């Protein structure tokens, strides 16, 4: 008994863990050595997701509760992250703000990836579709996305689904363009020509020979879109054209903090820091995922 306890040091814990979840731990170790930033990014994202899920239990108060006598309190033991110009608790508002950002980012990312793959393949592979699809995409893209999103949101009002739809609508044409431009060169590849020559049907060529080639650029673009949508949502809230100002969102917090920037930097700095960290984490995941998913780029063997 005594000896058993003695051997239970950290090293043996790793051994036990290895015995229990061997392949998983090995994989984790392998990833940690080759793609440390991937794990850092995932850790950041999990952390933010936990904040979003458990927001009510994280010593938060009502994020919309106004308390003018305690306005612009510096961060301290009473208010961890201080208070803003009407005395709202910055900690609670920041934690609740995580929810809006993550929901909008991932919803737009998923929608855009699927729609862009579909329209990109059609436009890149079939000349007939190319003209129609790309003209419509050009038209949408020729309006700066933030302006079009503002106009769309002001159409129905700032609910989360509307903001998601607006950001998707102004974002996915860019992904279509990226997919299309890689399909344009992929369809000239020898292996695609070979597949065509042995009589493979078009859907098969698209699915097995062209689509896989678009995954790497689509991954990068998809990541950019998740990160970019979180930023766009924040910009919309910042400009006062996003989700209704009652819901705490990082962008509107920073818009509120703008007038007190010279004396209370924390009102702007804390949501700005969380926003930057979240987007940074997602971008780190994308960078590394790309290396792992694209066999041509994998670092093994080099």
């Amino acid at each position, binding site marked *: 008994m005594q000896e058993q306890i003695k051997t239970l040091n950290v090293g043996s814990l790793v051994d036990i863990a290895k015995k229990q979840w061997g392949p998983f731990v090995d994989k984790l170790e392998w990833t940690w050595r080759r793609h440390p930033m991937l794990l850092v990014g995932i850790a950041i994202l999990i952390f933010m997701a936990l904040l979003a899920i458990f927001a009510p239990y994280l010593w938060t108060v009502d994020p919309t509760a106004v308390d003018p006598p305690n306005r612009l309190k510096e961060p301290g033991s009473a208010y961890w992250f201080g208070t803003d110009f009407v005395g709202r608790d910055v900690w609670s508002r920041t934690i609740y703000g995580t929810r809006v950002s993550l929901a909008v980012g991932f919803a737009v990312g998923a929608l855009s990836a699927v729609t862009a793959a579909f329209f990109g393949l059609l436009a890149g592979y079939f000349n007939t579709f190319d*003209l129609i699809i790309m*003209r*419509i995409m*050009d*038209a*949408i*893209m*020729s*309006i*700066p*996305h*933030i*302006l*079009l999103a*503002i*106009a*769309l949101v*002001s*159409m*129905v*009002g700032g609910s989360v689904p509307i903001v998601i739809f607006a950001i998707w609508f102004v974002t996915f044409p*860019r992904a279509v*363009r*990226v997919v299309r*431009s*890689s399909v*344009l*060169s992929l369809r*000239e590849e020898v292996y695609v020509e070979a597949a065509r020559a042995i009589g493979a049907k078009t859907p098969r060529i698209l699915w097995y020979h062209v689509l896989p080639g678009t995954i790497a*650029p689509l991954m*990068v673009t998809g990541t950019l879109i998740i*990160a970019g949508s979180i*930023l766009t949502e*924040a*910009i919309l809230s*910042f*400009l006062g*054209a996003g989700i209704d100002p009652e819901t705490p969102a990082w*962008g509107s917090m*920073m818009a509120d903090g*703008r007038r007190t*920037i*010279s004396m209370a*930097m924390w009102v*702007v700095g804390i949501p*700005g820091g969380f*926003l*930057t960290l979240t*987007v*940074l984490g997602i*971008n*780190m995941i994308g*960078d590394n995922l*790309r290396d792992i998913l694209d066999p*041509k*780029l994998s*670092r093994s063997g*080099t």
Partner: protein
Amino acid sequence: MQRYLVQRILSSIPVLFILAVIVFAVLRVSGGDPAAIIAGKDAPQWQIEAIRNDLGLNKPVYFQLGVYLGDVLQGDLGESINSKKPVITLIKERIVPTLSLAIMTEILTLPISIPLGVLAAWKANTWVDRGILIFSTLGFSIPIFFLGFLLIKAFALELPWFPAAGYVPPGEHFGNFLHRIILPSLCTAILFWAFLVRMTRATMIEVLREDYIRTARAKGLAEGGVLITHALKNAALPIATVVGWGIAELFAGIVVTEQVFAIPGMGRLIVDSIVRRDYPVIQGCMLTIAVLQVIVNLLTDMSYALFDPRIKY
């Protein structure tokens, strides 16, 4: 090539038409009545009706669209509901600050980001690469208005090197113009810089693994030649796509930068007009930006043929 050019220019007419319809539809369907806003809060119904009649807002939407398109074809973008000035005059007043900001941003971006991207790809997976990548990822992840606040806090409030906000026309005093435009341009440039470094690196890495690069190296070509002639030229196609895309991003960034640094450009004009439901101004501005964007897209597509002789138009 010439045939393609004519074809593309002709085909951008439907793009602009679709765009005009989209903008028109979005604005007309959106809530808010400009007549009610002009008349004021407690205006009687008959007054609102009269204003609506004046502006032609009581006609069917397709009729308004037809009238509008007819006017646009004659070079008339209408006049602002709010200030009664012709929209063209308003755009002429506001386009200079926006274009200055765009050009300054490009000047600060392109000569730095593409060489850095090439360097990162060449030194892939070394500390040089990781350093460049981390900085560019960081620059890409900071919300542009937050970056603006940080720049203002650091270089205008803590260190009083630059004015915190404002704009001076280049014709009035060029030195002051530069002094005021540098901080906002830097703000947009950092975002754009990060974005371009990333994409240049990603495509260059892919290209550098191609067989013809190995061949070029094997036959003893100098590394510089391999990088520029063999690699960069082949990577130019995706990079060009991204620069073209980046210009739309750039305009979007400028809308925010103008807001943060109080620059009286087109971005602010549009945001203000959206708030006031000043339809003719919003339409005119969006159409102007769209024309600029269509030109950039056309140049992007044409550059494909320039970089890659396999693509023929």
